[in-house]
């Protein structure tokens, strides 16, 4: 179980490989991961994005990510989890976030990985400012993200993992 909030880039392949080795030692049979990148354009014909600056609330961010991770551990039989979230100015293609989950079986690993991302979107204190040709703008929260995060309160954890 680990949470890292950092401005530095991370090496996804190395992080996942290290996570897999630890997961195997704990008897896991499944590892799922998700990596989020800075998009170069908002939507199909939206403005080009020169860069994105992520602002966060030091202290609360770490607490919020740890609480989200604890919630995933309470809902699914995970053997391990990892969240790395960056802040600062990031250019298109840059990695923003990496989430890894490990479990005995794939169903819990997949579901917990999706859950962590959905809750990160709406419960972690980050704000994004995009630089576009029309000037800088703060990215609005999406109602769709709130709905996805709330949907987990109606969904139940898997009972019969395979």
């Amino acid at each position, binding site marked *: 179980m680990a949470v890292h909030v950092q401005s530095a880039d991370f090496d996804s392949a190395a992080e996942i490989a290290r996570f897999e080795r630890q997961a195997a030692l704990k008897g896991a049979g499944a590892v799922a991961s998700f990596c989020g990148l800075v998009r170069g354009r908002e939507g199909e014909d939206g403005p080009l994005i020169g860069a994105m600056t992520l602002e966060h609330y030091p202290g609360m961010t770490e607490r919020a990510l740890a609480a989200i991770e604890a919630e995933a551990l309470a809902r699914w039989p995970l053997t391990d989890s990892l969240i790395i979230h960056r802040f600062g100015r990031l250019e298109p293609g840059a990695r923003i976030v990496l989430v890894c989950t490990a479990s005995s079986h794939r169903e819990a690993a997949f579901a917990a990985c999706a859950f962590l991302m959905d809750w990160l979107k*709406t*419960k972690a204190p980050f*704000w994004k400012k995009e630089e576009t040709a029309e000037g800088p703008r*703060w990215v609005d929260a999406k109602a769709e993200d709130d709905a996805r995060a709330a949907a987990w309160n109606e969904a139940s954890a898997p009972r019969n993992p395979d």
Partner: protein
Amino acid sequence: MKLLYFAWVRETVGLDEETLSLPPGVTTLGDLALWQAGRGAGYAEAFSDPRRLRAAVNQDLATPETPLTASDEVAFFPPLTGG
């Protein structure tokens, strides 16, 4: 109490943090948001519509009903956009 501002709230208020005595009559987060709107131009703009804002008290997300004390750390910010 310590007040923190993030994202466009920080830019609109023109400060990232400040220290303040608990204003008279302010007992909840909702009271404080209303009081902030009366402090001058940047505050008036940032706090004109509290529905656009979110807040945390001592680093936990809070609601307008959350009670406040003089030693609290209160942060105001737009809805969260992590991930």
